[in-house]
């Protein structure tokens, strides 16, 4: 079995020390560096990415994830191409239907058709291809290279769409073996529909992560991140997503109480929701790689047994530097021999 690869999403909660944090992510051995996009909560993602690009030399980087609604598609294409230029061709474009970025402004998430259009259009625009629309020719003149588009997908239909039209997938339906298999089947269906195979897609598995001396200490600081997963991954439907029926109502209750203004903020209002609705254990099992280094290794090996190879971790913890060092130094190291 090939050793797994890891990426990380960082939250630009401040730009003081941000460049050094990104450099440390690269030095720790992460292969992918994502920056979260939530304009009312975090610093402007494209400015944060520019600083990330200037402070690193190897890691691939991009929005994880942006949406097709808060910026016009041509602005997104132009901005990610600008980051691609600053980084010397290391940019990727992670796209999703919109989470806190749109809920905080009362906008509905992108539809499947909207996402498909965005993935295809953004790929073409960054590739310098002209697109005729609204009686005008859209063309981003300054792109040097087509920036690969990764679609964040949390259900079978979006996973299938990603397989059909995207270059990569941020698979977010969960990390249990049955959910991974369901996800891969959906991605593969999409890939086949466009004459490709699963091997043509760069698939990354999104995991809410933390590592500590005890399992309890690892989980406590990321309950807000687990609540975000429950809120987001199941927001349209719980059908076809492998959630035990007896938990459906509790997931709905959590979603009703979720506050997008405190999205992914440690210790803020959403942190207590998973315990209140008795969902913590289910959500850890489903969405997390969290615990002692040995716990994390076991969870990763379990996911790998079902076909996952690349994991995006989350630096959504009070000490992201400590997390990066420990995760890559201990967990990734233990897996190196796999």
């Amino acid at each position, binding site marked *: 079995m090939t050793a797994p690869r890891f990426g990380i999403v960082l939250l630009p909660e401040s730009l003081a020390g941000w460049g050094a944090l990104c450099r440390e992510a690269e030095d720790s051995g992460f292969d992918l560096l994502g920056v979260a996009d939530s304009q009312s909560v975090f610093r402007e993602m494209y*400015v944060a990415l520019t600083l990330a690009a200037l402070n690193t030399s190897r890691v691939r980087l991009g929005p994880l994830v942006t949406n097709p609604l808060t910026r016009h598609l041509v602005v997104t294409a132009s901005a990610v191409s600008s980051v691609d230029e600053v980084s010397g061709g290391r940019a990727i474009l992670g796209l999703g239907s919109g989470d806190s970025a749109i809920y905080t402004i*009362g906008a509905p998430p992108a539809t499947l058709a909207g996402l498909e259009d965005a993935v295809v259009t953004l790929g073409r625009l960054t590739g310098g291809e002209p697109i005729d629309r609204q009686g005008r020719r859209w063309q981003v003149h300054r792109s040097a290279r087509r920036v690969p588009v990764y679609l964040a997908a949390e259900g079978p239909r979006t996973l299938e769409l990603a397989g059909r039209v995207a270059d990569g997938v941020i698979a977010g339906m969960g990390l249990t073996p049955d959910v991974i298999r369901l996800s891969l089947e959906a991605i593969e269906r999409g890939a086949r529909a466009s004459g490709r195979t699963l091997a043509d897609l760069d698939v990354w598995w999104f995991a809410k992560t933390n590592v500590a001396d005890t399992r309890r200490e690892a989980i406590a600081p990321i309950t807000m991140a687990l609540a975000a997963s429950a809120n987001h991954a199941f927001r349209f439907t719980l059908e076809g997503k492998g959630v035990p029926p007896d938990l459906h109502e509790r997931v709905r209750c959590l979603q009703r109480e979720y506050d997008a203004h405190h999205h992914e903020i440690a210790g803020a209002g959403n942190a207590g929701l998973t315990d209140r609705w008795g969902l913590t254990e289910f959500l850890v099992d489903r969405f997390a790689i969290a615990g002692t280094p040995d716990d994390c290794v076991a969870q990763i090996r379990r996911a790998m047994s079902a076909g996952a190879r690349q994991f995006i971790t989350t630096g959504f913890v009070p000490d992201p530097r400590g997390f990066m060092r420990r995760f890559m130094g201990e967990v990734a190291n233990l897996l190196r021999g796999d």
Partner: protein
Amino acid sequence: MTEPVRVHLRVPGTAPMPELMALLRDIEAAGFDGAGILDSQMISRDTFVVLGQAAGQTSRMSLFPAVTNPFTRHASVLAGAIQTVEEMAPGRVKFVIGTGYTSASTIGRKPATLAEMRACITEVKTLLAGGAVDWGGGARTELAFASKRPIPLLMAASGPRAIELAGEVADGALLLVGFNRGIVETALGHLERGARRAGRRLEDLEIVWAVRTGTAATLSEARRLARPTAVHWGILRWGGQWLEPAGLHLPPLEIPDAVRQIYPDLSHAQDWDAAIRATSFVPDDVVGQLCDAMGLIGTPEHCADRISEMTALGVRNLYLMPFQTFVGPEQEVRAFRDVVFPRLRAAGLR
């Protein structure tokens, strides 16, 4: 000494990023007071990517998007983005927003309405001040990281109603109207009318004159190079309502098709020589009149003298817009550093 003349320069993000950063450092070293980074997504690098990087490459001059618009980014994105840049360049950032020109036309939409401008300016202002905006549908949001340090919010305006709105709702105005006595007096009249609607006076506003600029070794060469912009402004009547206050009386001219085929338009042409050729239907003396009314076109000495003259009308804050979007403003940087700034200093205006 009277209040000094401040001079800002437009910088299109059309050159590779390392060149752009070197240019911005040169602009600051040459003595300019600020740089406005073009926001036109199809033809220029992303304005906030450039501004974010420029913040770390400069230390004194002000930085602003020039000019952004209310429709290619949500107001909450605009507020977050400008606040982010301000955090990297504290006290040196302005926010300049207009109805959108090439940023609108290249995506097949009309410029923003004044109602859209009013809404967006109010929203961005509220968010930057730490207030909450109600977006409808029960969504009410603050900008979590609003520093509450003042970021001047200027509205770019070319028409009378837009200028009045700027006077009413913004902290100031970037006036792209032209640059002679009649135009300046008329524009100030509109701005004052708007300011009064909000119980304010002209003195309460930051007024920046956007001035189309082109210097050359001789007056005739400067005017020849300015042809596409002059014709776009005066003959295609982009600046139509300003021709009368400017005191211009132009002969009727038939506009050939070639003029409308220039991409993205005559005054932003990628092929400037082709654009100059397309204006051959306009006689030299007409171009000369237009140049004098709309901007600073001539030798550097001529431009310095024109600025000195205009200070008599209270003009103190300039935003130079070199003609060519696809050629950097290096020529103007040299001309102002070597001739215009020393002359203004000698006149006690710098």
